[in-house]
């Protein structure tokens, strides 16, 4: 009985909830009283001008930056080590080691996330992002777009339930943009939630189930697109 109820609660629980989150750095209020939740199966387009607080918001959501006030809950829990494995990010930084090969980088992340058979996971993703042939190249030597593909593979390797994307299609060619879109869609269909920042209005219209605009640290919730 109690197990059944627990399961129900988890199923209904938001993936990510922000309550009255403020982030103040120095004298700048980067986020003011942000209330927000991400549900399963949502793909939220986050929009805003330069310096409006998009990146800060994503960093706070990822647990990289602690809010000055307010709470963040991931699956109803505060962000701790064990909760972090459900969060995947593609940020402006690729988070890769320049001196390691593509394969070594992915293997490193697969192991950090304690995946079983890390080698297989890595091979699979190398295939998916069309980098099998370049797997043993040093990451530093890759082009921006290739590095972005590795970064996406790195984020998707552990099958995150929450995916935070900061301009994920930056530098990708048309073919790989479509591919990446389909992977994100796939995750959403399996019950994950995605928040993505994009400056491309058409892409937001095409992908987002809901859009949210941030302006001067204030979140303006939009409707369905």
């Amino acid at each position, binding site marked *: 009985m109690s197990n059944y109820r627990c399961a129900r609660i988890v199923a209904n629980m938001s993936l990510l909830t922000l309550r009255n989150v403020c982030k103040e750095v120095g004298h700048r209020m980067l986020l003011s009283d942000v209330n927000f939740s991400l549900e399963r199966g949502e793909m939220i387009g986050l929009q805003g001008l330069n310096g409006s607080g998009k990146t800060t918001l994503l960093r706070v959501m990822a647990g990289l930056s602690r809010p000055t006030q307010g709470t963040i809950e991931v699956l109803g829990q505060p962000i701790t080590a064990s909760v972090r494995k459900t969060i995947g990010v593609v940020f402006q930084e690729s988070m890769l080691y*320049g*001196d390691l090969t593509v394969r070594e980088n992915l293997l490193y992340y697969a192991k950090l996330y304690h995946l079983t058979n890390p080698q297989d996971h890595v091979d699979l993703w190398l295939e998916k992002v069309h980098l099998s042939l370049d797997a043993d190249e040093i990451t530093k030597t890759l082009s921006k777009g290739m590095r972005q593909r590795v970064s996406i593979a790195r984020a998707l390797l552990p099958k995150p339930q929450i995916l935070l994307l900061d301009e994920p299609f930056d530098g990708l060619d048309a073919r790989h943009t479509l591919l990446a879109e389909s992977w994100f869609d796939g995750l959403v269909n399996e019950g994950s939630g995605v928040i993505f920042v994009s400056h491309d209005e058409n892409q937001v219209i095409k992908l987002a189930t809901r859009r949210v605009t941030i302006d001067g640290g204030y979140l303006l919730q939009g409707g369905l697109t």
Partner: protein
Amino acid sequence: MYLRSLWVLTSKDLAVEFRTKTLFVSAVTFAFLLLVLLGFSVSGWSMYEVHSLPSVLWVLIFIAGYLGLNRQDDKERWDGALLGALMAPMDRSVIFYARVLSNTLFMLLVELVLVPMFMLVLRQSVPQVPMLFILATLLCTLSFMALGTFLTSVASASNLREIVVPILLFPLAIPLFLAVQTITQAVWYASGLGLLTAWWAVLGGYAVLFLVLPGLLFEILVEV
């Protein structure tokens, strides 16, 4: 789980270093150049004066060690590599311990090259109590690297890192330096070994202090 993450991070550092060898090469080259300069300035010294040189070895090692720390830090910064580790599902103190471990291993390798060169260039005999010398070297390297890794994280957000890290590191490392140079001098000529208890305590105490405290404080330091 903790140990596995520790090993994943450490082996990654080792892989990076074995690929590039920048840390090893820069530390050894720099220390060797210093050694040669030192060789010039002591060439006219009497045998008696040359006897007090073993303690100078640690000036070289400290400077080389600082250089190595700097290199290591640069690699973590390239395209946000450190952020990836911060996002990983593990206690963040693992990152600190893994760095200390890999830095210590690198530095021991550097010392393995440097100490024989030191004996050769400055006409030094082999230490008379080698086991104690090795023990002191291990302890001092571990403590210095723990302290250095910690202070590198402390200063990581500073835009004057190149000057802030040494100015934080060297004053705090003075007890370590005094301890290891006194011990080295004593074990090299096997004299006054009984008077060293306090210095061994400093070496051990530093290792404990700077392995425990930063582990507790690391989370505070790395949050953006």
